[in-house]
């Protein structure tokens, strides 16, 4: 089974919230307060210096998803792409998934049944990017099979480590 995943580069995120708007547009949400993605900010301050970082978070489509395990009807399941998916016909609206999820992913619609990020299945099926990824102006958000994303991240990290090991100042050369 392929495991699709989002990737997120905190150094690139400007907190513009375009990902949230794109999600609302894609899923036809009329309420401003509902989206499958949330952006939170974190400010670090030390003396005269400060830095604000942003985190854009949606359902993480966990490998061993607790919501899948605790759902009393089997409405929540992992599909063939590793996406945590939902059969709304089986949902009883018990909110057990909401209680279990550490990331606030499950939301509830007017009919009392759960709704959640489905990785923009309607777009990905046709080779398009999820709406939030497509709209991100800084390319902080990415997506793809977990193996590929991991390889890319490993390569980036290795390159950084190598550069820092190889970099020397002229005065320190023998």
């Amino acid at each position: 089974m392929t495991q699709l995943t989002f990737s997120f580069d905190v150094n690139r995120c400007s907190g513009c919230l375009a990902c949230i708007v794109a999600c609302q547009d894609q899923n036809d949400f009329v309420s401003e307060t509902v989206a499958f993605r949330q952006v939170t900010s974190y400010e670090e301050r030390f003396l005269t210096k400060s830095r604000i970082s942003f985190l854009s978070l949606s359902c993480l489509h966990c490998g061993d998803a607790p919501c899948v395990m605790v759902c009393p009807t089997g409405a929540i399941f992992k599909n063939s792409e590793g996406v945590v998916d939902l059969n709304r016909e089986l949902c009883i609206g018990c909110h057990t998934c909401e209680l279990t999820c550490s990331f606030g992913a499950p939301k509830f619609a007017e009919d009392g049944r759960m709704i959640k990020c489905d990785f923009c299945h309607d777009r990905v099926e046709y080779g398009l990017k999820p709406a939030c990824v497509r709209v991100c102006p800084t390319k902080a958000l990415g997506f793809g099979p977990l193996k590929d994303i991991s390889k890319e991240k490993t390569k980036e990290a290795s390159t950084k480590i190598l550069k820092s090991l190889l970099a020397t100042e002229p005065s320190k050369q023998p």
Partner: protein
Amino acid sequence: MATRYFILGNGGAALHGIRALRIAGFTGEVHQISDDRGPAFNPMVAPYFLSGKVGWETCFPFGEAFYQTYQIERHEAETVVSLDARSRQITTSIGGTFDYDKCLIATGARPVMPPVPGLQDSRFALSLREPETALNMVTPLQNAEKVLILGASFVGIKLAEVFLKKGIKVVLVDIAPQIMPQGALPEAAKHVETLLRQKGIDVRLGVAMKKVEDTADGAICHFPDGSIETVDCIAVSAGIKPNLDFLDPEQVRINRAICTNDRMQTSDNSIYAAGDVCEALNRLTNSQQWMGTWGNACYQGRVAGQNMAGQYAEYTGAIPQHVSPIFNWTYMQIGDALRQGPGVQQEFKGDPFTGDNSFTIRVFENDVLVGANLINAATELAGIKMEIISGIEAARHTTSEESYQRGA
């Protein structure tokens, strides 16, 4: 002879145990003994079936095909009457005797029938725990004028909502002075009680029924003050007790339920236990506790199955938690909100009847968050949960650090 593993029970813990066993590569015989027939029933779904939200088949989340898929030899409609851990033998109600190499006890729990004279034998006293009794509630739902719900537990409140929405008068009775006595703080319980009364439910608390008398088409419920209620049905939701009467406590250690270690083993190495029949780790108190929920049962069953198959798996425990949609509210409780003592403080926020209709009570012990009750405040849940877990981890670290300092 092939290795024979026996699974006792037919619920979430049992079936997740079986699945884990097979996925881990166990190729021996898997026998399952249960007192029911057909696929596994989840009583949690029954109120939603009764309300018409889902069909009857949704109450059976694993389906019929599960047993063939995982090559289970079923012994249906058989009750285990004894388990001899020394000889590793199980005896059933129809005289069957079975030798096992390893056994998973996942026999769940049964409804408590309060000791009210006439209640146990009443034709009109029903519970939701088994498919047959749940289906028996369909007729009163269609025809009843008034029902009495005995036990203002989460299940009782849910049933009250189901009956009320069908236009049936509901009397909700509990011997406790508040509704939701397990885990809800009095202030939160009072708010929910107010909601129920506003909806038209006759809530009677601190009341014990004196006796029940059946008539031709209903039951007369007698109360100590001399009053009576004539009802079409009594829905019993007064708690559950684990099904472990077949066990010898001299052979398998039992507290309030079967004691287990972090691998879901009992005091006998060849016997495992999972689900509503056992105690397991409460991460908040770092002690064994009986915490019967569907999710805990499934995880425990899985861990037991993996260990039975020879893998190494640990059950890392759970924090007590519960969620209940009540009419258009969502009530949640997490951690140990009922903690008391000199260092305990409560912090209140909001009012479920005004503003954004949210209400929270956070409970701190020595400035560490240990529990909460939330009404319509799900957006705060993740943060509260993280904070409680951080408190647990900090306490563990402090304990380790203190031990290190002491040279332990």
